[in-house]
């Protein structure tokens, strides 16, 4: 028989989002609060991100991932938030029954509020449909990071990295420091995906080349990777015949994007947004199903953990707000030049943050808000990169008096190259 427990709040996932929302819910008077974590430790991916750069917005200092996580672990240990480690959630029903299993047995939580904070996972070779053989030596960048930083294992000696996102850049430096040779970082787009700071400190510092407008077209090797074929791509991202070159290496790292992890959300019949891959939410981060909230990378991939903490603290407060699930007035839609808009729904436009991600790098950019085809608000942004979300205060935007669909676009002068 499962242990049956009644809860006011059950938080699923003990990474930065889960820790901050459980903590804030408890501080706002919710009792009891359960935090369920699949792994042996709280902190999630922060534990393997041993490099500095976290917490600048929130704490005004540059922390490493583990240090950032420790601050929240410590705070949690001083509360009565019930943290269950080694606990895997198997199922969430639309009626908010959360079924989980851990070494103590099977649990069944009946909860008033469920907070989804399962984070995201990495895109894999299969999703890229990368042709070639299937040897050992192909890793996602995050897996390589886990092997190096947590297990103390080096995944390979001669490495090629596909994708210039921040995790790929960080791993180029990390592997170089540990004695591997990083042959190059290959990026299919014509501009850097990660932060300029990471390009300078992770590639430029170690003379690692960055090949823009290139991609991996074949993997070679039978038992182990022996090399990869790299080709130049045209404007449409298609490989140009005749431009192939073979790069000998024993390891290929993939840093090609993250996908919100929403298997459980689907089970609970929570409406998902095709654009973000995460639940459709409003300014309270409330889902379109009574009693469910979502925060952090399960909603859409954030670039700064500080932002994840910020929105998750908001969720912790919102669990006590009865109107959090009231119908929305505005529906936000990404227009030209915009890849991501969070939240997708807005009730009143009086609180919370609006996060935007541009599709490309722009100089002299303008963010434009339009309603029924007419622009009602424009905001100038000197520089705008896909690697850095634009964060706006929802209350600063002069929302139209009538509700409906709001289209948000970004235009500007395209930046090609590294900066």
């Amino acid at each position, binding site marked *: 028989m499962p242990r049956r427990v009644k809860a006011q709040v059950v938080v699923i996932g003990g990474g930065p989002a889960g820790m901050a929302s459980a903590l804030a819910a408890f501080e706002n008077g919710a009792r009891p609060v359960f935090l369920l974590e699949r792994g042996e430790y709280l902190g999630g991916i922060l*534990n393997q991100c*041993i*490099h*500095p750069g976290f917490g600048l917005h929130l704490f005004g200092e*540059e922390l*490493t991932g*583990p*240090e950032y*996580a*420790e601050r929240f*672990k410590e705070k949690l240990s001083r509360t009565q938030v019930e943290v269950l480690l080694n606990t895997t959630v198997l199922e969430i029903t639309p009626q908010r029954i959360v079924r989980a299993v851990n*070494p103590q047995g099977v649990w069944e939580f009946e909860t008033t509020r469920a907070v989804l904070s399962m984070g995201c996972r990495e895109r894999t070779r299969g999703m890229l449909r990368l042709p070639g053989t299937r040897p050992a030596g192909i890793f996602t960048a995050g897996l390589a990071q886990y092997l*190096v*930083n*947590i*297990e*103390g294992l080096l995944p390979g000696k001669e490495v090629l990295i596909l994708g210039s996102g921040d995790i790929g850049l960080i791993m180029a430096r990390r592997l170089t*420091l*540990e004695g591997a040779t990083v042959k190059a970082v290959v990026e299919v787009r014509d501009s850097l995906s990660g*932060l*300029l*700071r990471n*390009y*300078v*400190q992770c590639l*430029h*510092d170690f*003379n690692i080349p960055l090949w823009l407008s290139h991609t991996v077209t074949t993997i070679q090797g039978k038992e182990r990777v022996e090399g990869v074929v790299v080709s130049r791509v045209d404007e449409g991202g298609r490989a140009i015949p005749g431009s192939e070159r073979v790069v000998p290496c024993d390891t290929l790292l993939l840093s090609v994007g993250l996908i919100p992890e929403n298997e459980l959300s689907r089970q609970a019949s929570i409406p998902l947004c095709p654009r973000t891959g995460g639940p459709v939410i409003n300014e309270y981060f409330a889902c379109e199903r009574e009693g469910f909230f979502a925060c952090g990378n399960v909603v859409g991939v954030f670039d700064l953990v500080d932002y994840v903490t910020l929105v998750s603290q908001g969720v912790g407060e919102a669990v006590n707000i009865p109107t959090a699930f009231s119908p929305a007035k505005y529906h936000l839609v990404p227009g030209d030049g915009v890849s991501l808009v969070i939240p997708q729904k807005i009730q009143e436009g009086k609180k919370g943050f609006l996060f935007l991600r541009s599709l490309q790098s722009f100089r002299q950019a303008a963010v434009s808000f339009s309603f029924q085809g007419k622009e009602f608000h424009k905001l100038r942004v*000197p*520089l705008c*990169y896909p690697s*850095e979300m634009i964060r706006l205060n929802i209350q600063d935007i002069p929302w139209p008096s009538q509700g409906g669909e709001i289209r948000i676009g970004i235009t500007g002068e395209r930046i090609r190259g*590294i*900066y």
Partner: protein
Amino acid sequence: MKESAESTKVICIVCPKGCILEGRRDERGVTIQNGCPRGQEYAYRELQNPCRIVTTTIAVRNAALKRLPVRTSLPFPKRRIPELIDFLHTLSVEAPVRVGTVLMENLLGEPGVHLVATRTIERKSPSRETERQT
């Protein structure tokens, strides 16, 4: 963009603009030719003695985890980073360790640059070991 360490060009990372700042080196030292005040300060440091916060892991004995993540308390001279990493590979500490603990002072003789633990790691609990064996 492909400048070596000896170059007098610096990609500024103080803000996201990414200006290329140029320095001139003569007998009186380095002068930066362009850029905003913050950028000039950054470029000056980059050309005089570039330093970085170094993070890595070291071995930890009798711990629930295999590696202890560590950092330098202050930026460490860039040219000596490989030497520092080699040295840190020889180190090992005994669990438990608390986050923020200074493990070693004045790393490789660099004044004020200490080695700091960035995670709390408990001692390996014997009970869990038996639990795993069963």
